[in-house]
């Protein structure tokens, strides 16, 4: 595409000037761009006309849509806005939903861990209570005494083998 596609007599080597032509027409061109375009336009009438066209239409568009809004427009818009009127609305739950979401998520995770831990503990035998221990037939004290189970054997051995000194 070149600035003068509609001109069959023009050359096709003007494509790089499309952006500069548009900008030159509305004042958004820097000094370097302006210098390049001016140098080109000095020898290219088609591009010169293209820039004039751009400038002409640039002015027309603003005029065609120059709007005088209806006097009630602002009031209509402002009245359409629902501003918070009570403390419940002022709390702005939408905003708070996002703010407390991470905290809520952390609490949920913690609760989940707690439940899972208690379920694992329920699968292993619970420690005996005092009443349960008392109901066991073997006396608790005897059962739990660190007595030597081979004490009788040692006693027989002692009788069968006299003291070395007595030999």
């Amino acid at each position: 595409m070149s600035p003068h596609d509609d001109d069959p007599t023009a050359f096709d080597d003007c494509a790089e000037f499309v952006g500069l032509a548009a900008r030159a027409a509305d004042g958004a061109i820097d000094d370097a761009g302006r210098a390049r375009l001016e140098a080109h336009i000095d020898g290219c009438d088609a591009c010169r006309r293209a820039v004039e066209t751009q400038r002409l239409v640039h002015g027309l568009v603003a005029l065609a849509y120059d709007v005088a809004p209806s006097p009630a427009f602002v009031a209509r818009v402002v009245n359409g806005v629902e501003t918070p009127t009570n403390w419940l609305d002022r709390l702005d739950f939408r905003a708070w939903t996002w703010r407390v979401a991470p905290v809520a998520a952390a609490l949920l995770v913690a609760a989940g861990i707690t439940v899972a831990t208690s379920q694992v503990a329920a699968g292993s035998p619970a420690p005996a209570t005092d009443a349960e221990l008392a109901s066991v037939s073997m006396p608790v004290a005897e059962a739990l005494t660190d007595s030597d189970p081979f004490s009788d054997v040692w006693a027989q051995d002692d009788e069968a083998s006299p003291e070395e000194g007595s030999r």
Partner: protein
Amino acid sequence: MGAAEVYDKQETWRVAGPDPTPGPDQSDADQVLVDRAKRNDQDAFRLLVEKYQSRVIGLVWGLVEDRAAAEDVAQEAFLRMFVGLKGFRGQSSFRSWMFQIAINAARTHRKARGRRLDVPSGEAIDLDAAAGTDRLDDAVVARDEVRSAMAGLPPEMREAVLLRDLNGLDYREIADVLDVPIGTVESRIFRGRARLRQALAPKPATEGARR
């Protein structure tokens, strides 16, 4: 044609109008109002609407091609702006963001209702006064003709031309609003204006009319 006259012709395009892009002060002023409006300050919101109503309605009008609907769509855009204000972090200028909302609202409207053209109002503008040129033989053209010509453009060209020529966004801002490369913006604006000029060119007289 003398040398001085040639020089004047060249100066006509060389002396381009000022870039309508507002400076940083304007953006700062917007930011103050935006910050207040975020805190549900209704006066600040009202000031923002007052400031941008003409440009938003004009932009929407160019996109939906219906003056009456343009105010409704613009109102919808302002309400969307208010709702979204708390999420606006200022990464782009407020006006770019506002115009982006307006364009989206207009696109939604066009999809929902299809195209409708305005009834001509008969207002006229003088092209010579508007653009300082004598290249058009019939120098007076109805505003409606410009708007009808605009309606013949593809929407993407129309958006680019309106954002630049009506709303004064710079090329970088337009690229951000439309989410396209800046070269695409330049091309759309250039081609859009060229097509408008072709559509506005005086129609050749018919054989029958000449006799």
